[in-house]
């Protein structure tokens, strides 16, 4: 069972503001989902004991070289325009420090 404090902490890590009512509801719902996925604990196989052995997944990230993907600046205006708060070629955010 997942505790109320854990839900509050997860919400904060997830950058979500939850109401008191939602905290209670998520506590129940996440509890039942986690109870379902817990069946995974029984999964093992003879030639690959997944309980202890770290696996190297066959899915791998595929990266490109970080060099000149396209002509500089050709998408800038379009992408800046998608930001809800922008000013010329800048995206506006509140000060951080």
């Amino acid at each position, binding site marked *: 069972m*997942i505790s109320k404090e*854990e*839900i509050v902490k*997860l*919400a904060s*890590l*997830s*950058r*979500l*503001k*939850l109401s008191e009512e*939602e905290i209670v509801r*998520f506590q129940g*719902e*996440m509890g*039942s*989902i*986690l109870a*379902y*996925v*817990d*069946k*995974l*604990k029984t*999964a093992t*196989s003879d030639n*690959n004991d*997944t309980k202890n*052995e*770290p*696996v190297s*997944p*066959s*899915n791998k990230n*595929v*990266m*490109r070289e970080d060099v000149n993907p396209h002509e500089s600046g050709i*998408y800038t205006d*379009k*992408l800046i*325009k*998608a*930001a*809800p*708060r922008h000013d010329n070629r800048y*995206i506006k*955010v*509140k*000060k*951080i420090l």
Partner: protein
Amino acid sequence: MKKDSIKTIDLKNLTIKSAHSALIGGDYTVRELCEAYLSEIKKKDGDIHAYLEVYDDVLKQADEAQKKVSSKNMLAGIPMAIKDNILIEGRRAGSASKILEGYIAPYDATVIKKLKKAGVVFIGRTNMDEFAMGSSTENSAYGVTKNPHDMGRVAGGSSGGSAAAVGGGLVLAGLGSDTGGSVRQPASYCGIVGLKPTYGSISRHGLMAMGSSLDVIGPLTKTVTDAEILFNCMKGKDRYDSTSIDVDIKDSSSKILGVPRHFLKGDGIDSAVMKSFERSIEKFKSLGYQIRDIELPNIEYSLAVYYILMPAEASTNLSRFDGVKYGLHREGKNLLEDYLLTRAFGFGREARRRIMLGTYVLSSGYYDAYYNKATAVRELLKSDFARAFQTVDAILTPTAPAVAFKIGEKMADPVSMYLEDIFTVTANLVGVPAISIPAGSKDIGSKQLPIGFQIIASHGREDILFALGKQFLNES
């Protein structure tokens, strides 16, 4: 003919193939075909609610597409509906989420680029579960899509809008995306064909990401032939999606079909679905195929693996929606509160649930027990399938455990909704192609609710799915 009269076209039996012949033969123009669909949408979509937006330039697009109509160009002038998570430059795209309110796509998805080049006419963008999270479109921020076969029931999801539009005769073909069954399950519910291609065979560039190691774009069509036409147009390596691959077209000669009987014994499967499935197996036998019982030892863990990996990837992908870069912005006291308020207001309940779940399984202390364990079992599933495909050419299962359910029926219990994906998620985890084929229906009262079954083949063997599907549906 008067300008405002609608040409009578038999839309019910129309396919991409037959529309193409008619357009070439001059039976009607692209404009007349599109007018016929727009008129159907006007009549019926108020009730079905497949579309979030019907574009206002359809007839202009139609006139342009008319110029491309030729015997070499199968898709010129074909009207299509596009799921709201696929970008078309200059048009609204929102994944049916409030958090993307006002967002205009700044570029074309690779699939859209290819379809545009072929001369496809885009009729509109279709409803879906928010960020493709759900099996019913009930998680849309803009209201549920109804099943054209029974307005009291869901169309399935998450690509429910595209499926209902095709199944309800409101468009000739649609695009969806499939992360755990989101093309196949609504196809099954709406009585049409839905293809989930091999992972990477169709570029994800311009598709809003949910589970990046699982997501793939797929067509929703009335026939297998139409699905094949669209797949062939859209497939291929793309420099903008590093996971995309080229799939060679092979010649199919499959003979042995596997059925994982041990996985079909649960009491959660509707008896009408099982009866229909047995009839489909009989039909394949009568077509000369050998049916073999197969073991997929870890398949019972598929759904648990999926509901760990998918939320983990989804919570990561959805972190980009913060009120700064796109769409909605809610004003708070400081930057952190901007994030909190924008995301709390912008994301619906299921999106928030999956973000929380993903954050949980990725958090320190739980990472090994959940994420690592799920990744390990995913590898076991891959070897299960690799072993199975050494002895059989394709695997058959039902697509969904039951027919379309009533609107509201599963909304209170997320696990019951997740169980909708029990037969479909494995193909996404393993990366193999799968197709849902319509195979009869279940009568409930005066309504006939469609039932589908699923064919799964090994990586890059869409040709086997097409060959089997066409034979099953007697398509020449």
